[in-house]
């Protein structure tokens, strides 16, 4: 142990001596770590945040699909669904997409007689139980695109090309932008009119199950009893999003592999391409009694110091980039695009295992790349020093 500590101290001395080349290597290395760690942190935060958001969804929802396309489902189905053992609650949902011709934005219209669970209001009041009063609660996206505010009137065109005027009575907070940015909540009647869904049908039917472990059983029963329906569970949606995030992350990772390979080649050359001074120093060390394993320990310490410091630096930079600055270098590529885009703030969520993963991916290739060059440096002949 003393031997390792002594050699580590000596290595630090030598690195201090050649600080310029060491620093330049650390900087390049940390940029690559920064890129990968940023992607990982961003995806992890998105997954975590979407996990929180998706928890408020119903356990199951039933949709009618004809020719691969979603069509309104008859409300008659509701009675049959309510009879299935294990189902605690069934409610019809009216929602759909509205294309705003003036701005090119696509908004989500949701029919409701109250504010959906989990959403917070910035200002104004929410909806109360009413029939067709022309009111709406909007996300910040619509307000910004149209330059309107609470109390303003907004005009929609329904499916029969009639104009509908609604008054904005409330706005969702920007902290819930991830799901409310493009959201417009209107009374059920208004929603049906705007989306062209009759009183006898709904967009889909949401179901809550008493025992979460019974969800798959309920899904099977629904599929058996009701033809031409697609049954989606919340867990499926969560795992789909996680796969999507993982997939997008891996796209970046593949790209980064090339940078990593280039860096590994650089590391190999740096470790192997010793200057004559460095070669002489190793020769002197060998001549005064350092063995090949001692030199290799020294090179290992050198590699570890460089890789750990670069990884730490890259991690800190990535954390600041993602959680303080909102990942401006990554967001456009990882979250897709839209006219109505949420300016969401990423939740700071970092797991220890992710930090370990970053260290794993950065330290191992570097140490592996420096094994052979370290050995080549270590096998210099001590007798050559005698003859020098």
């Amino acid at each position, binding site marked *: 142990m003393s031997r390792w500590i002594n050699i580590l101290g000596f290595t630090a001395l030598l690195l201090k001596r050649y600080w310029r080349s060491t620093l330049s290597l650390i900087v390049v290395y940390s940029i690559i770590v920064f890129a990968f760690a940023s992607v990982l942190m961003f995806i992890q935060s998105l997954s975590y945040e979407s996990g929180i958001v998706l928890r408020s969804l119903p356990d199951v929802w039933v949709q009618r699909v004809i020719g691969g396309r979603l069509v309104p489902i008859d409300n008659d189905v509701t009675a049959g669904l309510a009879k299935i053992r294990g189902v605690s609650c069934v409610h019809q949902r009216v929602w759909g997409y509205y294309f705003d011709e003036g701005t090119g934005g696509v908004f989500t219209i949701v029919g409701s007689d109250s504010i959906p669970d989990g959403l917070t209001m910035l200002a104004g009041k929410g909806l109360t139980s009413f029939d067709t009063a022309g009111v709406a609660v909007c996300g910040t996206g619509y307000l910004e695109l149209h330059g309107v505010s609470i109390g303003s009137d907004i005009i929609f065109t329904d499916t029969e090309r009639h104009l509908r005027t609604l008054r904005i009575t409330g706005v969702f907070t920007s902290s819930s932008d991830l799901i409310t940015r493009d959201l417009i909540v209107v009374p059920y009647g208004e929603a049906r009119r705007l989306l062209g869904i009759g009183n006898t049908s709904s967009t889909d039917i949401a179901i809550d199950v008493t025992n979460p472990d019974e969800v798959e059983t309920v899904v099977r029963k629904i599929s058996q009893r009701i033809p031409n329906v697609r049954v989606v569970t919340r867990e499926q949606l969560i795992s789909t999003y996680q796969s999507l995030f993982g997939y997008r992350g891996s796209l970046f990772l593949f790209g980064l592999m090339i940078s990593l390979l280039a860096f590994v080649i650089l590391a190999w050359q740096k470790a192997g391409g010793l200057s004559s001074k460095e070669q002489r120093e190793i020769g002197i060390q060998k001549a*005064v009694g350092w063995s*090949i394993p001692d030199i290799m320990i020294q090179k290992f310490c050198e590699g570890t110091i460089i890789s750990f410091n670069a990884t730490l630096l890259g991690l800190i930079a990535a954390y600041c980039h993602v959680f303080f600055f909102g990942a401006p270098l990554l967001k456009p590529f990882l979250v897709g695009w839209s006219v109505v885009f949420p300016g969401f703030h990423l939740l700071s969520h970092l797991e220890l295992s992710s930090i370990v993963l970053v260290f794993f991916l950065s330290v191992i290739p570097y140490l592996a790349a420096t094994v052979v060059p370290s050995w080549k440096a270590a096998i210099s002949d001590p007798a050559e020093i*005698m003859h020098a």
Partner: protein
Amino acid sequence: MPEKIIVADNIIKIFDEGQPNEVRAVQSVSLCVFEGEIVAFRGPSGSGKTTLLSLLGCMCKPTSGEIIVCGERITKWSEHFLTMFRRKHIGFVFQNFNLIEHLTAYQNITVPAIPLGLSFHEMNLRVHKWAEILRVDHRLAFPINLLSGGEIQRVAIARALVAEPELIFADEPTAHLDTKLSNELIEIFSNLKDYGKTLLIATHDPIVYGSKIVSRIIDFRDGHIVESGA
């Protein structure tokens, strides 16, 4: 009666054996060195003195023959074991001293001690001990390029002694020194004998081989011992 500390029996060293550029650096050399002796190997450049020192100093293996150092038969050992043995039992003073320029005197002296696994306290004690004996303790914090020729010489010797070896090998130690420094070096070597060290010096400098401290001169020419005498 002093013990034999080095015994060499018919050692031969051939470089690039069988190749057109084959060199027979050492040819059938047999000798022994006793504890406490100061032996000078005298001969012109290219006579094979340095190669002989490398062989006896466990830096390389002979092509044939037997070498016993401090009671151990080292001839068949691997390079690693030779290194492990050498760093404990043999200290080297090189022709150009070969100190690491950007390190201080203190740091240079510790270089052989680092892989020995000594505690920091023990290393520190040894460095200060030999620095005091060699009168460079007041210059330990200075980088090598700020030391005088004599101080560099003494730092190099302190480095050779920090592992407390029984044997000191010096290869042309006065090659780049003036007369004054050469005499200072002789004085240092004389003091080392008082510490129980055995010295082997390869030299063609009459200041060294002609001094009173040398107990035996071995003449070396073309890889052979020509003459050996007190």
